[in-house]
C-alpha cells in the first residue's frame, strides 16, 4: 500500500509538477511542509502561484470515523496556524464559532483571535484533540478562549451554547454557524431517515436555534456568518442530502439579512469549493473523490481552510459594514457564487 502510494505520488508529481522540484517530495515531507511552510513564508503582501501553494492531487487514500480529526489527516490541513498575521481588524470583538475545532471554523477561530477577538468554539466531544489545539492557539494570541463541546442537534443544547459563550466572553457580536454534517451517498435509496434527520438537525435546525437564542445578545454592528457551499448552486449527485441544506443556508442568510438589516446586524455567507477538511475524510467524500479532490478546479488542487480565513474576517469586521445578504466564495475557479 505504502509502496503503491509512493509510486503513484511520484508518477503524478513527475507529470504534474515537473521532475526536478517534486521527485524528492515524499508524503511525510509534504505533511511537514504543509504546517511549516505555507503562505507565511512570504512577507505579508507578497504573491505566490495559487496552483503551487499547497499539495496537489493525488492525495493519499484515507478514512476516519465521523467526525474525523484534522490532526490525523495526511497532509495536515493548513488553518493558518503558522501563517495568519492579524492587524487589529476585530479588536475587542466576541465570536462564537460552531465547528471551530477544525476546517474552516478553525481557520476563522485562529484569524479572529489574531485580529483581536475573544473566541468561543463549539465542537463534538470526539473532536476534543483538535479543539485543544485551537483553544491553545487562541490563548497564545492573547485572547479569551472558551471550549464548549456538545452536539447541536437539540434546541436545549443550542440555547446552552449561546448562554455559555455569552457568559464566558461577557457578550457576543460575531456568530459563525459553520458546523455541518456531510455524507457521500450515491443513491437516495440508501439514505436512511436517521441520516436525513441528522443532517437536517445539524445543518438547518441548529443554526435556527442558535441564531434565535443569540439574537437578543447581538447589538447593532454585530455580524452573523453562515457556511454554505458551492453545493448550494451545483449539487453533486452523491451529496443530495447535504447540498440541499447548503442551498437552504444560502437562502436563510439572505432572508435574515433583510430581516436584521433594520436592526443593524449584518448576515452573510461563505461558499467554499473543495476544501481539505476532516469532513471529507470521514464519509463526506468517496475515496475516489478524495484522492483527486480539487483536480476538477481550474487551480488544480483542493483548497485549504486557511485560504478562507480572510473571508470570514472580512464579513465580520466593521470595515465590511455595507456587506449584508451576500455570499463570498472560495471555489478554486469552479462553482458559484
Amino acid at each position: 500500500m505504502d509502496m503503491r502510494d509512493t509510486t503513484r505520488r511520484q508518477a503524478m508529481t513527475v507529470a504534474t509538477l515537473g521532475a526536478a522540484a517534486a521527485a524528492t517530495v515524499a508524503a511525510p515531507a509534504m505533511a511537514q511542509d504543509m504546517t511549516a511552510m505555507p503562505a507565511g513564508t512570504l512577507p505579508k503582501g507578497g504573491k505566490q502561484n495559487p496552483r503551487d501553494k499547497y499539495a496537489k492531487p493525488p492525495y493519499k487514500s484515507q478514512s476516519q470515523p465521523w467526525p474525523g480529526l484534522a490532526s490525523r489527516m495526511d497532509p495536515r490541513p493548513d488553518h493558518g496556524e503558522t501563517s495568519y498575521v492579524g492587524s487589529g481588524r476585530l479588536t475587542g470583538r466576541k465570536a462564537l464559532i460552531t465547528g471551530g475545532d477544525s476546517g474552516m471554523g478553525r481557520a476563522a477561530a485562529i484569524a479572529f483571535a489574531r485580529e483581536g477577538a475573544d473566541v468561543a468554539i463549539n465542537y463534538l466531544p470526539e473532536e476534543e484533540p483538535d479543539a485543544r489545539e485551537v483553544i491553545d492557539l487562541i490563548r497564545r494570541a492573547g485572547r479569551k478562549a472558551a471550549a464548549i463541546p456538545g452536539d447541536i442537534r437539540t434546541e436545549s443544547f443550542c440555547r446552552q451554547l449561546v448562554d455559555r459563550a455569552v457568559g464566558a466572553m461577557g457578550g457576543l457580536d460575531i456568530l459563525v454557524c459553520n458546523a455541518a454534517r456531510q455524507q457521500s451517498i450515491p443513491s437516495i435509496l440508501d439514505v436512511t431517515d436517521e441520516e436525513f434527520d441528522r443532517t437536517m438537525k445539524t445543518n438547518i435546525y441548529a443554526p435556527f436555534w442558535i441564531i434565535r437564542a443569540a439574537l437578543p445578545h447581538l447589538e447593532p454592528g454585530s455580524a452573523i456568518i453562515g457556511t454554505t457551499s458551492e453545493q448550494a448552486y451545483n449539487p453533486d449527485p452523491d451529496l443530495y442530502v447535504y447540498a440541499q441544506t447548503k442551498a437552504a443556508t444560502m437562502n436563510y442568510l439572505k432572508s435574515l439579512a433583510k430581516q436584521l438589516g433594520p436592526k443593524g446586524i449584518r448576515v452573510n455567507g461563505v461558499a467554499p469549493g473543495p476544501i481539505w477538511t476532516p469532513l471529507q475524510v470521514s464519509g463526506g467524500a468517496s475515496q475516489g473523490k478524495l484522492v483527486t479532490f480539487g483536480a476538477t478546479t481550474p487551480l488544480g488542487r483542493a483548497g485549504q481552510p486557511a485560504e478562507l480565513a480572510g473571508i470570514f474576517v472580512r464579513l465580520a469586521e466593521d470595515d465590511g459594514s455595507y456587506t449584508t445578504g451576500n455570499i463570498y466564495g472560495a471555489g478554486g475557479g469552479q462553482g458559484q457564487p
Partner: protein
Amino acid sequence: MIVRLLAVAMLVTCLASASSSAQEPGSRQTREFVQAAGESDAFEMAEAYSALAESKNPQLLAFARQMIRDHAATSRALKDATMRAGLKPPPMGVGAGQAPFLAALQSQHGIDFDRTYWRQQVLAHISALVVERVYAANGDTPSVRAAAVAAVPLVQSHLAMVEAISAKGGDGS
C-alpha cells in the same frame, strides 16, 4: 459523440492556419495541441487515481495502473518535445472541458463507478486520438509532431482496450 469528434477535428484543423501570437512562442496550432494533449494526460491520470482508490475490479485496476504509467510517459515526452522546441511546457491540470467528467466520476461508487469509468474512457480516448492524429499528420513543430506520432498507436491501443471491455457490458468480467 460524432458531433464532438467533428468539432475537435475542425478546431484543430482551423488552428493549423492560425498565426502565432506576439506573446508566446509557437504557432497557435502547436500551443493548442500542447494544451489539449497535456490536459488529456492529466485527466487520464486523475481518473486513474480515483479508480485505484474506488474500484475493486481487477481488470479496471490494471487498466488504471497502465493509464498512470503510459500517460506519465506521454506527458514527459510532450514536455521534453516542447523544451526542445523552445515552447512553454504543457499545462499540468485537468482542462475545463473534461473537469465535469472527472466530477461526475468522483460522485460514483461501486459498480456504477466502474461503468462510468469505462464509458468516460471510451469518450476520452476517442477525443485524444483525434487530437493526436491531426497534429501527427500536419503539426508544424517537428519535435512536438514526433511526440504526437509516437502517442497515436498508444492511444489507439488504449481505445481498443476500453472498447472491447465496453462491448462486454463494461463489467470487466
